[in-house]
């Protein structure tokens, strides 16, 4: 009978893991819709293709090599049982949950380089990022390995519960490197350096994408408790759900008030970014704050994202069509730094060390990789292709072929 009980705990944890993983997988649809809504219609089919393709590449590369690099278990998962042999859940469910995180990190990149990058150059980047770059830093953080034999982040007081840094800031770092190598979209900046708005084509899609991400984030953060079948873990998961939701709400409200004060209008795109910022901000530590604290952490994320998007766009001339670098990078960092405020086991210095390590590694390797891709196959479509939209040159079809453009 005791055995039955243990089996049932195993079943509960596995079931929980799978449901949370399915929610995170759903975030792939969220990123697709968000990005498809925020680009111009002439670049929409391409960004959809990119999102479907990157999800498939992430799943396959992480299966072949990345999971082994991060957690062991052998190439092509041949020894996957070994990894989870003492776990309270089925080994495949751990892989399933982890793999959707890789895809999330990769999705962050796709938005920032939208409307001008060559599709297959992006896919080439995705292969290396999901097979090597992400798994390496994942091994240092979530698997506790030492960073090139130098130091162990966990020992320094670093903690990133569900990945504000490990997933989101990492994705943003790769995106930033990509945008720097790629340059701004044609027509984004005027000769005098001023910046033009390039409105996305479809706000309902962007809103749908945000709601999908909001929902999927319950899996992202909730699943990161990694266990459900005890009172303690059930309480933890419940608190994580509550706080994840509260932080998103805080991000929305803060962004809403701020844009109303700044420009007198409720700029929907910023409100959506506020929701995502709230979610990114709480991700590093959704278990320790109270509901009110979570709301405030999210709200600060919402404020940060409004300023960050403007500063990156206008001051630094970094052209990020969907605001991914601000939402996931700047706010991801804020999320890491907010953890010590509510979690006494975590140190600011550790968070800074972790953020630095992740950023340097991901940004550095990504920069080299983007530059190499630029040299070898080129990463940017021609000017004319960009004017006509990348859909036709890359996908050979139009997203809304019937509508007049």
């Amino acid at each position, binding site marked *: 009978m005791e055995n039955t009980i243990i089996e049932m705990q195993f079943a509960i944890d596995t079931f929980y893991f799978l449901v949370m993983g399915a929610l995170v997988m759903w975030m792939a649809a969220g990123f697709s819709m968000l990005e498809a809504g925020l680009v111009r219609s002439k670049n929409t089919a391409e960004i959809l293709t990119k999102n479907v393709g990157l999800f498939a590449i992430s799943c396959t590369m992480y299966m072949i090599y990345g999971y082994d690099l991060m957690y062991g278990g052998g190439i092509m998962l041949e020894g996957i049982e070994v990894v989870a042999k003492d776990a309270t859940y089925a080994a495949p469910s751990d892989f399933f949950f982890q793999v959707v995180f890789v895809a999330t990190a990769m999705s962050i990149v796709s938005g920032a380089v939208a409307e001008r990058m060559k599709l297959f150059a992006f896919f080439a980047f995705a292969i290396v990022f999901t097979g090597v770059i992400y798994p390496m830093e994942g091994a240092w953080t979530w698997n506790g390995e030492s960073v090139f034999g130098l130091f162990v982040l966990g020992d320094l007081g670093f903690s990133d519960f569900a990945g504000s840094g490990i997933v989101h800031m990492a994705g943003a770092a790769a995106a930033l490197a990509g945008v720097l190598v790629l340059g701004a979209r044609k027509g984004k900046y005027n000769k005098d350096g001023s910046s033009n*708005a*390039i409105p996305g084509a479809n706000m309902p899609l962007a809103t749908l994408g945000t709601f999908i991400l909001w929902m999927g984030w319950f899996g992202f953060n909730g699943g990161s408790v990694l266990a459900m079948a005890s009172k303690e873990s059930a309480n933890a998961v419940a608190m994580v759900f509550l706080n994840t939701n509260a932080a998103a709400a805080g991000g929305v409200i803060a962004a809403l008030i701020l844009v109303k004060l700044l*420009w007198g209008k409720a*700029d929907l*795109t*910023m409100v959506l970014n506020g929701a995502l910022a709230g979610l990114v901000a709480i991700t590093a530590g959704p278990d320790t704050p109270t509901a009110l604290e979570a709301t405030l952490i999210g709200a600060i994320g919402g404020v940060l994202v*409004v300023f960050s*998007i403007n500063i990156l*766009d206008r001051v630094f001339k970094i052209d990020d069509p969907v605001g991914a670098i601000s939402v996931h990078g700047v706010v991801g960092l804020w999320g890491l730094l907010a953890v010590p405020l509510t979690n006494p086991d975590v140190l600011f210095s550790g968070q800074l060390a972790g953020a630095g390590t992740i950023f340097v590694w991901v940004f550095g390797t990504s920069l080299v990789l983007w530059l190499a891709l630029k040299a070898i196959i080129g990463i940017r479509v021609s000017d004319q292709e960009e004017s006509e939209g990348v859909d036709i040159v890359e996908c050979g079809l139009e997203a809304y072929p019937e509508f007049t453009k």
Partner: protein
Amino acid sequence: MKMLTAIIKPFKLDDVRDALSEIGISGITATEVKGFGRQKGHTELYRGAEYTIDFLPKVKLEIAISADQVDAVISAISSSAKSDDEGKIGDGKIFVSNLEEVVRIRTGETGSVAL
């Protein structure tokens, strides 16, 4: 025959169509267009960046009529397309040009009878 081209505000379309029907006009071709003119565009926001929309949504009506209907049609459009009694900037314009021939595809009829 004459071709009248009127640019009006989109939400006035039904009123203008009714006014034209009343004076017996039975053919109109309408197009959604964007107009740039004295009417100041509005400012839009996008992710915190303000920008001006110069081209405002308008509807263009093309109406082929016989020469003797011109005045009646102009006055029907003028009165029905005004935003209010004084009119507002952007209420639109009517252009008149000459129309040499008309053919009704179905019957092959030409001239006024084909209108």
